[in-house]
């Protein structure tokens, strides 16, 4: 009998377009610190030799809109286009290409989610990437060699799924991985946040206090602390801070403490920027 799959690692990273689009505008040392952290995450990721990556992020009205906005969605495609347009590719300085998908693992995850009494949307194809995946994966997997199962969490329009629900969704992902045999070694990557304001008067502000407190909770590995947020508390760090839900999903998939590889408050990128890796 074949061995069942294992979640062998988890990573989180910010996905501000500035990280790849205009890295040099950050203050001296910040670009280097963030890129070194990404390089360390990439080194750890490669060492894990994953068969597939469950990639969790929001999407910024690139595919979904207010006529159909899933709280959670699981994609089961063979491949994904990113960045979505040539203009966005130029803006992000990421070459437009197709990212490989692990369709079998995606279908399994979708079915397992329903059997586990979660109700994500099914996205069989046509899901295009924006900065959500294109920015972090330019650093984490520049050759796009690892097949992805994209999972989208609504982080862009209220009301949002609760932090606890996001964490539980992550726990379900791990059980799903352990209930199949095709993808033996699976990594979960969450991207988004930390504090930032999109399209709002406060844009360019960073709430470093919020960010550092969130990262301390992440390092502790205590799910009760990590998910103990009200909507108003997250609002204090901007509408973009609601993307921390993607980190909560990834944290739930491993239920472990994390190493914070970098934190930099970068107003020029409009974002509190961090990269973290599960301490497994």
């Amino acid at each position, binding site marked *: 009998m074949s061995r069942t799959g294992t979640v062998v690692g988890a990573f989180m990273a910010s996905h501000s377009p500035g990280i790849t689009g205009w890295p040099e505008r950050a203050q001296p040392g910040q670009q280097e610190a963030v890129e070194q952290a990404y390089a360390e995450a990439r080194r750890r990721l490669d060492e894990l030799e994953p068969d597939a990556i469950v990639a969790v992020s929001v999407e*910024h*009205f*690139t595919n979904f*809109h*207010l*006529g159909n906005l899933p709280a959670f969605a699981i994609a089961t495609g063979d491949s994904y286009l990113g960045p979505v347009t040539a203009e966005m590719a130029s803006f992000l300085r990421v070459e437009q290409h197709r990212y490989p998908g692990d369709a079998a693992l995606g279908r399994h995850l979708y079915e397992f989610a329903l059997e586990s009494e979660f109700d994500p949307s099914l996205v069989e194809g046509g899901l295009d990437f924006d900065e959500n995946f294109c920015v972090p994966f330019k650093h984490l997997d520049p050759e796009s060699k690892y097949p992805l199962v994209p999972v989208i969490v609504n982080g*862009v329009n209220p009301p949002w799924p609760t932090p606890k629900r996001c964490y539980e969704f992550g726990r379900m992902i791990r059980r799903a991985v352990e209930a199949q045999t095709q993808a033996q070694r699976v990594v979960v990557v969450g991207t988004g946040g930390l504090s930032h304001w999109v*399209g709002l*008067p406060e844009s360019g502000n960073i709430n470093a206090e919020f960010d550092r407190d969130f990262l301390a909770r992440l390092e502790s590995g205590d799910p009760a602390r990590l998910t103990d947020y009200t909507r108003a508390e997250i609002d204090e760090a901007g*509408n973009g801070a609601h993307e921390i839900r993607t980190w909560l999903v990834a944290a739930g998939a491993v239920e472990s403490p994390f190493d914070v590889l970098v934190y930099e408050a970068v107003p020029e990128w409009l974002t509190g920027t961090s990269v973290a890796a599960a301490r497994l």
Partner: protein
Amino acid sequence: MYALHKLLWDIRRDGAVKARYVEEPDAVLDEYGIEGDWRHLMKTLDFKALYERGINPYLLYFCAIQLQVDRAEYYARIRGEVN
């Protein structure tokens, strides 16, 4: 409000809608059934009022970029510094 959200999204996603909106905004606003205050606020790019009435700021910002509104001007408008 949904009609305006849909128009903002279509301008972001569909170059043909954007081009037509730039050429003949009234005809496009008619098609989407956007009337009254919403129509006035959209035509005058009153992002601050649109946001305060519940329009999603991501969609406002992305649509502004598509309409070649300068980023600094967008933020001046959302802050109410330009009317």
